[in-house]
């Protein structure tokens, strides 16, 4: 029986402000616990919040980038619940009057299909601290460094119909916020986190009961988690059961999910406008000045990449999507001078390695200049493609620049036609039987027989002969023989 999946996303993006949304504490990641928490972040009595203008500016940039209405008046509210890593026991967030209203994010799928996902709204809020449940002998540790980090929470409409769309949407959002420079996009550090609302229904029917899986911080986890949850819901219904509205947690390592709390256990958050913060009123000039200074957005960059570099829409999509990736590509291609090769290397070997090691391109062990240095040697024939892989591996392991590695490993390709001719001659001289077979073979079968000779020659050259030249010289010599 046919089922339709319905997905809506809530995305938390940490804004890349230097200080927190309501205090002067640093937002830098990775500091010793509780070294970036002021009296306000600790909710000491009598402390008061002062809004960080940069957080507003960033939220407005996002709103403009998704073609949304910017609220002239936005209001912070208190969302009340007790938890040790929420020091005030309320989160300052926006509910009735968020800063960013309805907008849309357009995605393109692998098969070229385009789709527009509607954004319900996006609002500003503060992040909570972290509870650390290990290493405290049965107690929990609290780290408030993250408490008060500004977040923009982006809430989509339930317009997404499968995991591929969900991932494309999530990647597009990642691309938008990193292109705007309002979020560093470091998913492994929690800079972007995804809550996925999933339900299933028969096509044409009303929405089914949804579950929410919280805090996914990788695209792959999101994809896996959606597949798992959709299967669970369909199995449940087909077995005569019912989906219950609940919050779930997904473990990306074990690929398992579990229920966290049901709707009945949900908090009544008792939202109300925060009396310590006045409504923020913006005028048109302020919004307009932000619009004028928006950096290049992913869609514009995609079109520019197609035009400027002659890339296919698909390739342009991959290379322009992530702002760091785009910057990497543009830097590398400028140095190497070979757009096609550079694009192939970034989308191929480099991306594969980054994915395998769960690294972002921003922290790639091989930087754009290094990759370009290697490609330059590939283009000028110093090394072969095969050698390039060795050079890349060495660069990845931090052994230095391409030229140093080529020198140190003696990876120079032999492109001296005299030397290659000599090797070809020697192999031919020692391969009477194969030469006879070649001579007697049907012309259509001959190309397949070349492999043996090429293999012998490369072996003789210890892999350093320029394969293109080997092919040319070998063919010439064999033709002379028959």
């Amino acid at each position, binding site marked *: 029986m046919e089922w339709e999946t319905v997905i809506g996303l809530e995305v938390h993006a940490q804004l890349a402000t230097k200080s927190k949304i309501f205090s002067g504490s640093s937002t830098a990641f990775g500091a010793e616990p509780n070294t970036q928490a002021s009296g306000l972040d600790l909710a000491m009595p009598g*402390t008061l919040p002062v809004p960080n203008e940069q957080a507003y500016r960033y939220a407005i940039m996002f709103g403009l980038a998704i073609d949304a209405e910017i609220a002239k008046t936005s209001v912070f509210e208190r969302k009340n619940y007790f938890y040790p890593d929420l020091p005030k026991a309320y989160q300052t967030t926006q509910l009735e009057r968020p800063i960013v209203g309805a907008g849309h994010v357009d995605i393109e799928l692998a098969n070229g299909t385009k789709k527009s996902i509607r954004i319900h709204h996006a609002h500003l809020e503060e992040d909570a601290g972290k509870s650390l449940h290990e290493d405290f002998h049965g107690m929990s540790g609290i780290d408030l460094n993250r408490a008060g980090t500004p977040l923009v929470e982006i809430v989509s409409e339930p317009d997404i119909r499968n995991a591929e769309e969900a991932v494309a949407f999530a990647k597009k959002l990642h691309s938008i916020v990193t292109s705007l420079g309002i979020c560093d996009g470091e998913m492994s550090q929690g800079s972007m986190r995804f809550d996925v609302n999933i339900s299933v229904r028969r096509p044409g029917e009303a929405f089914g009961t949804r579950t929410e899986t919280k805090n996914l911080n990788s695209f792959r986890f999101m994809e896996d988690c959606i597949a798992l949850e959709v299967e669970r819901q369909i199995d449940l219904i087909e077995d005569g059961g019912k989906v219950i509205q609940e919050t779930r947690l997904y473990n990306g390592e074990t690929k398992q999910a579990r229920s966290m709390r049901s709707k009945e256990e949900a908090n009544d958050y008792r939202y109300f406008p925060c009396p310590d913060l006045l409504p923020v009123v913006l005028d048109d000039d302020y919004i307009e000045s932000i619009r004028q200074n928006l950096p290049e957005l992913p869609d514009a960059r995609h079109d520019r990449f197609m035009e400027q570099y002659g890339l296919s829409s698909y390739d342009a999509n991959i290379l322009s999507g992530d702002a760091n990736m785009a910057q990497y590509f543009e830097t590398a291609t400028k140095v190497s001078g070979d757009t096609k090769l550079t694009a192939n290397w970034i989308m191929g070997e480099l991306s594969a390695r980054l994915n395998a090691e769960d690294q972002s391109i921003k922290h790639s062990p091989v930087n754009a200049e290094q990759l370009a240095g290697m490609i330059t040697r590939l283009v000028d024939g110093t090394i072969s493609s095969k050698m390039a892989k060795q050079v890349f591996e060495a660069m990845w392991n931090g052994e230095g620049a391409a030229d140093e590695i080529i020198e140190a490993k003696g990876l120079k390709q032999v492109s001296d036609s005299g030397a290659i001719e000599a090797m070809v001659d020697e192999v031919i001289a020692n391969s009477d039987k194969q030469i006879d077979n070649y001579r007697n073979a049907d012309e259509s079968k001959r190309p397949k027989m070349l492999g043996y000779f090429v293999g012998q020659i490369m072996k003789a050259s210890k892999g350093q002969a320029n394969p293109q030249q080997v092919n040319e010289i070998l063919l010439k010599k064999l033709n002379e023989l028959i």
Partner: protein
Amino acid sequence: MNNSITNQKALHDKTIAEILAGLNAGEFTSVEITQHFLDRIKQLDGTYNSYITVNEASALAQAEAADKRRAEGDVPALCGVPIAHKDIFCTNGVRTSCGSKMLDNFVPPYDATVVENFANAGAVVLGKTNMDQFAMGSSNETSFYGPVKNPWDTNTVPGGSSGGSAAAVAAHLTPGATATDTGGSIRQPAALCGITGLKPTYGRVSRWGMIAFASSLDQGGPMARTAEDCALMLNVMASFDPKDSTSIDREVPNYTANLNQPLAGLKVGIPKEYFKEGLNPGTEQAVRDALAELEKQGVTLISISLPHTKLAVPAYYVIAPAEASANLSRFDGVRYGHRCDDPKDLRDMYMRTRAEGFGDEVKRRILVGAYCLSAGYYDAYYRKAQQVRRLIKQDFVDAFEQVDVIMGPTSPSPAFEFGAKGDDPVAMYLEDIYTIATNLAGLPGMSVPCGLVDDKPVGLQIIGNYFDESRMLNVAHQFQQATHWHQQTPAGIASEAKDTEGAE
């Protein structure tokens, strides 16, 4: 008042203005007067319980520093003048309890802006005054540190929540004290203790470091014996504070500049709703007499209506508890303050910490507030109360089209006996029936002594337009120039014979 009489006054009977004059003239030093007050507190406060903490060593050190500054010719506005802070203002290194068990062990690592302002003005802090727990109460009976006794009659309450500050001023245990007012917590105790107190316009005095009860209503202000002293204190206390987003960026005028302006031509609004049933006849008479005195000075009394007055108490008892329920959630035993012994788990820690750390009135208001905000009730209570709040504000805006100030009683009756309203929260809430509306509207209000009923003081309330504190102080000062009520002291308090007795 001539100098010879001033000089005869005991140090503790002097007003702030007189203390400044004495310090300037070299009649005494800050160390001398500070020591005098410290001795007096030690001697008498066992009776009144107006202080929670007395900082003998730091007060004397501050006094010494002030004397040194004065000697060097660096004389800020309140250089060497002793004051006290309500124990709701955070003081760096000095326990700030907010009258609660919850914060009995809390020593802030920072000063409230108000505390900083007084320190910069060279004031000397004698100690921290008693108060209703978390400023919730109108009788000071909710303090974890025991009730404050009204110096006029120690069987009666001093009012609240700033009852410690009011009693300390009334008993001449400090010439002035800071206080806070969320629904009348400056004005009502000022009235019941026969002193002068001013709640400024919301946003005039920084709330940074002032422990929040209801953030949209809380406002700090001065208490002293005269309007002139309140003006001197407000000059220091008021400031624009970038650390408080609700602080208003507006120049602080010199509040003493207009004190002596004649009142002729002033239009005084008398709200008919403030003279209805529930008002003690003696209190009403005293207020009417005060208004007649002002008429003699040439003011015009104009009968006005504030039609939504009766809705102020109900609206307040939705909004204030709602805000308090969130403001007091941070007291969870995790980071500071009281934590229960041997918690079994997180839930047990939360529940016992808060059950033990909060008193009944605080719990009552947290429950009411959480209820008003809960799903299904928000629209009926919180949203409705906010709509009422706008109507109440509009009443005042309309009234101030016609009049310059509004006057009436501060509280419905003089001080009552301990326990008289203890079992009836609603009767207690009605204590603030005339003061609450100004908090809802964000307007400034003042109470000045205007009579005695059965030997208990009565307060005249003066409500001003936004940021019109200067005019209110002017009216109060002119009233005090013509009357002696502010100079009356409880039996046995002033050392000298009352020098203005029989002035009227």
